């Protein structure tokens, strides 16, 4: 049988050997955590504490009434030493954050109470528990989970997809979680499915992780409606649109189309695991698994990290740098965000911290495009990056729009494959930004 997959895509080297055999271990208790109020896609939260306040683990310290949002919680117990803008690892600019100095005691807040058995909870209650626990997609995009599992009535959902692809090179956080915590992942998955509600679920894993596939298959044995599917290892298999195409053969319409439009909700395995923790212990989202890796990290590892821990703290725990780093990235090498300092905190969407060597940091200057069309062949959205990028380079946003630049996933396959090392996705991203801004302006003018 043909292996389940999508069209286009690339096969970058995996680089997962560095950490795929490393069991998840707890990171050292941080002395200081920096918790940005905006950690998710959506409206930023407002601080609920002030400088000087004592806080406990699991205490809600930031929230908002906005619908597309998630609260944040203290990950350590101790004193709030500052509520001020701090450098944000995803947005690349200082954003309001709550800085807590840990007292090392790990006192748990009284609001943290185990929840009733899932069988006794209805869909609405599960959704509000998800909202209150601050769950957001742990795959990287950090979209508020409560919103994702609340499809409008007009969009019937027939399938739930749990994303365990982890198609980014270097990252192994989800992989280890599936190997070590499969029963909890299935537990959380069933709760997510009950919240939607939907009865058919697929767990999708790239076939370069046979041990994870085995562990998850073992965990779903005897669970009606749940099935583990091994997908071809091909980047970006973990993009939800591509994953839905691979496993169900359905194509999500272009933006503003969502998986909901084809009856599907996709969540990450890490998110399901976090929900299991919420339901079993009552502890909201205060930690996550982070892969600290890269050729210049002395001892790469998969660490369970308190949110707000600084990158520099974690790199030090992994033996520090073995050589001068040239680039520090939050996330994987294909879609991760380059940092200019290690003094930034782990947030909900931090799946990995990747340090590249100096000679890997810069690919050299671009040479002329020879129209080899490799970018066209690999584009998983079936776009024509060579033309979109040429128009974007000249600032011709309307022409880039006519070639559907706004549909770009920004997966980076085009730039990865380009033999001339041209900034394809980089310029298309710029065009997309301009196109969407112009559309918003037109909508307002109306």
């Amino acid at each position, binding site marked *: 049988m043909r292996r389940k997959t999508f069209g286009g895509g690339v096969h970058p080297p995996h680089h997962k050997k560095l950490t795929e055999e490393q069991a998840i271990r707890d990171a050292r208790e941080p002395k200081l955590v920096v918790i940005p109020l905006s950690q998710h896609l959506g409206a930023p939260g407002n601080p609920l504490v002030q400088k000087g306040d004592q806080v406990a683990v699991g205490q809600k310290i930031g929230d908002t009434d906005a619908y597309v949002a998630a609260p944040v919680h203290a990950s350590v117990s101790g004193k709030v030493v500052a509520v001020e803008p701090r450098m944000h690892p995803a947005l690349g600019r200082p954003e309001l954050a709550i800085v807590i100095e840990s007292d090392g005691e790990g006192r748990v807040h009284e609001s943290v109470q185990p929840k009733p058995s899932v069988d006794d909870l209805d869909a609405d209650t599960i959704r509000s528990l998800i909202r209150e626990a601050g769950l957001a997609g742990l795959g990287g995009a950090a979209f508020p989970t409560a919103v994702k599992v609340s499809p409008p009535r007009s969009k019937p959902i027939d399938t739930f997809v749990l994303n365990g692809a982890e198609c980014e090179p270097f990252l192994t956080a989800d992989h280890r979680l599936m190997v070590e915590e499969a029963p909890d992942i299935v537990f959380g998955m069933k709760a997510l499915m009950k919240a939607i509600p939907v009865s058919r679920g697929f767990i999708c894993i790239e076939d370069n992780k046979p041990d994870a596939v085995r562990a998850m298959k073992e965990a779903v044995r005897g669970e009606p409606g749940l099935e583990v599917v091994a997908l071809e290892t091909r980047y970006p298999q973990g993009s939800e649109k591509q994953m839905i195409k691979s496993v169900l053969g359905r194509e999500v319409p272009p933006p503003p189309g969502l998986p909901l439009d084809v009856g599907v909700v996709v969540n990450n395995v890490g998110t399901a695991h976090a929900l299991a923790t919420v339901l079993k212990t009552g502890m909201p989202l205060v930690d996550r698994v982070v892969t600290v890796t890269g050729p210049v990290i002395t001892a790469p590892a998969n660490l369970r990290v308190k949110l707000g821990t600084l990158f520099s703290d974690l*790199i030090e725990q992994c033996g520090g740098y073995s050589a001068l780093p040239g680039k520090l990235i939050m996330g994987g090498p294909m879609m991760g965000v*380059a940092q200019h300092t290690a003094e930034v905190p782990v947030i909900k969407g931090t799946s990995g911290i990747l340090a590249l060597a100096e000679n890997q940091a810069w690919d050299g200057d671009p040479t*002329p495009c020879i129209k080899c069309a490799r970018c066209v062949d690999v584009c998983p*959205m079936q776009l*024509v990056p060579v*033309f979109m990028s040429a128009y974007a380079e000249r600032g011709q946003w309307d022409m880039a729009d006519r070639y*559907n630049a706004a549909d770009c996933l920004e997966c980076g396959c085009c730039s990865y494959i380009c*033999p001339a090392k041209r900034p394809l996705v980089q310029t298309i991203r710029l065009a997309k930004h301009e196109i969407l801004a112009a559309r918003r302006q037109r909508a307002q003018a109306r």
Partner: protein
Amino acid sequence: MADHKLVVSSSPHLRTKETTPRLMGAVLLALLPAALASIVLFGPRALAVMAVTLASALVAEGLYMKIVRKPVTIADGSAAITGLLLAFNMPPMVPLWVPVIGSFFAIIVVKQLFGGLGQNFMNPALAARAFLLAAWPMSMTTGWVVPFDGVTSATPLQVLRGMASARLPETWELLVGMRAGALGETSAVALLLGGFYLLWKGVIDWRIPGCFIGTVALVTWAFGGSGGLFTGNVLAHTLTGGLLLGAFFMATDYVTSPVTRRGRVVMGIGCGLITALIRLWGGFPEGVSYSILLMNVATPLIDRATLPRVFGQRRVKAA
């Protein structure tokens, strides 16, 4: 932790090792069997023509870049390919000054004046060949010789068209290249070796050569025979002339062929139809180079007409 400079750039942070010079290098390597075959078949004369053409292409490129004060990039291999392909298109006994002029025309007029690498709208080697054919037709259309004995002879396509009378070579002779023809086009085995190497390495896509050769085979089989429909000599038509050289190495030129998959199918079929048309009913015995040049010119139009359907979209949106 020492705060030293970290590179901050937009993702992706990982790039393939493939580069333009490496792709060009693969094409040059793929042309090597045909070049060696040519030297074996036509002797030192072939070596001389190839050396002079290739060198003058490199000189033209370097000289132009020096004059306009651009960084000299002859190391990217693209000028070398143009030079070698132009040499492959020469009759063995061509006067040596002819390909030198051709090289300068290809590099300076067809490529550099239109903006250099990636910007030309026609294949430089073929455009130069067309120019030489128009300017010095005698030098370009005579001087066909039989390999090894060096006796002047008609090309098989001239024989097929009834423009000359001679013995048509046996199939094995066509395969190894024991026939009159341009320097690099005669040895089918050497060209196929190089062509399949490029396909295997993923340097070229099967669509253009596959559709090109397939279309020529189909049309010449259907209409090329004297005994009615489907009596044409398919083997003679596919193995002679410049079909294999053109289909694998010239129609596939990235810069002048469509970027869309469907566009490459259109390019291949278009080249095949025009070639067959010229061979069967046109004024010349051979039509490969004109077919490619015509399809080169149509390439931007083909791209626009064959844009892929965007993922999730029902219909193709016209750009």
